[in-house]
C-alpha cells in the first residue's frame, strides 16, 4: 500500500530521517513507534507532502507520491490527523465534517450557479454520512457547536471522524490516543476496528503499547530517524534493539 524507499530528510545538520525503507504491504493496520524525536511525525510529513524528501521515493498503491503538494497527496487517498489536533475552531462540528469530502461539486464557482440541483443533492448525501459518523463517535449532541468548545478528547474524535469522512484509502493517525482518558481510547479503538472492517487502511504513530498490540498487525520501529526493526507487535515488544532504543542505553 504505502512504500518508502531510501528516504532521507535532514534539517540543517540534523538527520531527521535516514535511509528509511518500509512497506505496509496489505496489512490493514500498521504501526509506527519509537522514542520521542525519532522522526515519526517527520515521516508522516514526508509522506503527506508537507516536506519534500532529500532523497528516496515514496509510493502509494504503486504510484509515486513524493514531491506532490499536500493537497495533491490527500486527493490520492491519504488523509492524516495531527499530533496537536487541527480541528476548525470557529466552525461547527457538522461543518468540520462537511469540509472533508473531496471533489465536492459545490466547491466550483460555476457549479454553484449552474448545477444547483446536483450541489443540493450532494450536500444532502454528505450531510447524511456526516451525521452517521458523528453519531458513531457519539458527538451528535454537539453537532451545531463550534469545534473550539469541545473537550480535547472530543476534538480528537472529531478529527478522526473528519478524516474518515474524506473517504480515504489510507488514514495516517498521529498519536490518536495521546492525552485521552481510557474510555475514549476504547471508543477510538472500536472505531478504528470498525473502519478496518469496512476496508480502510491505517498507519498509526503510537506511544501506548497496549493500543499498538491491540490494533496493529505490523509495526515499524524508528530510532534517530532510522528504521531499526519491524515485525508483529509482540515480537517487537521483546526485540532487544527496540528495548534499548526506548531505554536510551
Amino acid at each position, binding site marked *: 500500500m504505502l512504500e518508502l524507499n531510501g528516504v532521507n530528510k535532514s534539517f540543517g545538520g540534523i538527520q531527521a530521517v535516514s535511509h528509511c525503507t518500509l512497506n505496509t504491504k496489505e496489512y490493514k493496520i500498521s504501526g509506527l513507534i519509537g522514542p520521542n524525536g525519532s522522526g515519526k511525525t517527520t515521516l508522516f510529513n514526508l509522506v503527506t507532502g508537507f516536506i519534500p524528501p532529500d532523497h528516496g521515493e515514496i509510493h502509494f498503491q504503486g504510484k509515486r507520491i513524493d514531491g506532490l503538494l499536500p493537497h495533491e497527496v*490527500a486527493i490520492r487517498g491519504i488523509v492524516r490527523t*495531527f499530533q496537536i489536533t487541527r480541528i*476548525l475552531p470557529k466552525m*461547527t462540528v457538522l461543518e468540520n465534517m462537511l469540509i472533508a469530502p473531496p471533489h*465536492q461539486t*459545490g466547491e466550483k*464557482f460555476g457549479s454553484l450557479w449552474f448545477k444547483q440541483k446536483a450541489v443540493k443533492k450532494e450536500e444532502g448525501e454528505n*450531510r447524511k454520512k456526516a451525521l452517521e459518523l458523528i453519531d458513531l463517535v457519539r458527538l451528535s449532541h454537539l*453537532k451545531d457547536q463550534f469545534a473550539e468548545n469541545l473537550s480535547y478528547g472530543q476534538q480528537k474524535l472529531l478529527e478522526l471522524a473528519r478524516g474518515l469522512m474524506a473517504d480515504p484509502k489510507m488514514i495516517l493517525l498521529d498519536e490518536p490516543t495521546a492525552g485521552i482518558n481510557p474510555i475514549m481510547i476504547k471508543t477510538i479503538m472500536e472505531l478504528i476496528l470498525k473502519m478496518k472492517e469496512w476496508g480502510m487502511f491505517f498507519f498509526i504513530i503510537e506511544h501506548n503499547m497496549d493500543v499498538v498490540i491491540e490494533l496493529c498487525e505490523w509495526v515499524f520501529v524508528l530510532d534517530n530517524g532510522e528504521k531499526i526493526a519491524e515485525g508483529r507487535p509482540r515480537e517487537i515488544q521483546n526485540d532487544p534493539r527496540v528495548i534499548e532504543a526506548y531505554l536510551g542505553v
Partner: protein
Amino acid sequence: MDLFLHLWIMILIYTIFAMSLNLEVGYTGLFNFGHVAFFGIGAYTSALLTLHQVPFELAFAAALIAAGLSGFFLSIPSLRLRGDYFGIATLGFGEIIRMIFQNEVWLTKGPMGLPGIPKPVLFSCRFATLPQYLLLTLGFAILTFLVLRFIIRSPLGRIFKAIREDEVASTALGKNVFHFRIKSFVIGSVFAGLAGTLWGHYITFISPGDFTLLETILVLLIVVLGGKGTEWGPVLGAIVLIFFQESLRFLRLPAEWAHYLAPLQQMIFGGLLVLLMIFRPEGILREKGKSTDVGTKRCQ
C-alpha cells in the same frame, strides 16, 4: 430630505464595499489592506468608458471585469505569502494603483481628475435624481448581499472559512488553498469594483486623491466594527460609520476648522481601530455557532 437620501446612498455604497472586503478578510482570512485599489479601478474604468460615450451597461461590465482581473493578477504572486507579507503587498498595491491614476495623465487626466461623469442609464432607465440613485444602489446592495450570502452558505464558502481557520488542515484534506484564496480575492475585487462604479457615477467627479489609505482604513473599520465574518456586520458598520463621517460634513463648521477637522476625524478612525482590536476584536455582531450548509434550510 436631500441629506437623508445622500446619507443612505453613501451607506449603501459602502455596504457593498464592506461586504466585498468581509468576504476576503472576515470569511477567508486574507489580510487585504489595499482594497481601495479595486474600488478605484472600478470607478475609473466605468468613468473613463462612459465619458467616451460607451453605454453604461458595457462600461459597468468592463469595470467589474477590470477589477476582477486586477485582483487576479495581484493575487498570483502574493497569495502564497504569510499573512503579514500579503498585508504589506496589498498595502503597497493600493499605493501603486493611486500612483498610476496620478501619473498616467494621458488616460486619467492625473491629479486634475475626471469631471462630469454621466449618470447611469441601465436598460433605458436613467438614474439621475437622488431618489432614483437611491433605488439603484439599493438594488445593487441587495443583489450583492444575496449573492455573497449564497456563496458563503455554500460548500465554497465553507472552504473559505476552513482556510481562515486552519490552512494546514484544509490542505491536508485535499483543498488547494492557493486556488481558493484566489477565488475569494477575485470575487471580493469584483464587488469592490461594483461599489467604486456606483460611487464614481454618484459623485460625478473623481481624482486620484479619492483612493487613498483613508478609504482602506474606513472600509476595514466598517467590517471589523460591524463584526467580521457575519452577514449583517458590514451593513451595521456602514450605517454607524458613514453616518458619523457624513454628518460632520453637514454641521456647517467654519472653514478654518476644516483644516483640523479632517485629520482629527481620521485620527478618530485610526484610534477606533486600535481600541476595537484591543478590547473587542469581534466587533458588534459575533459569529454564531449555527450550521450554515445548504441542505438544512428545509429541514429546519
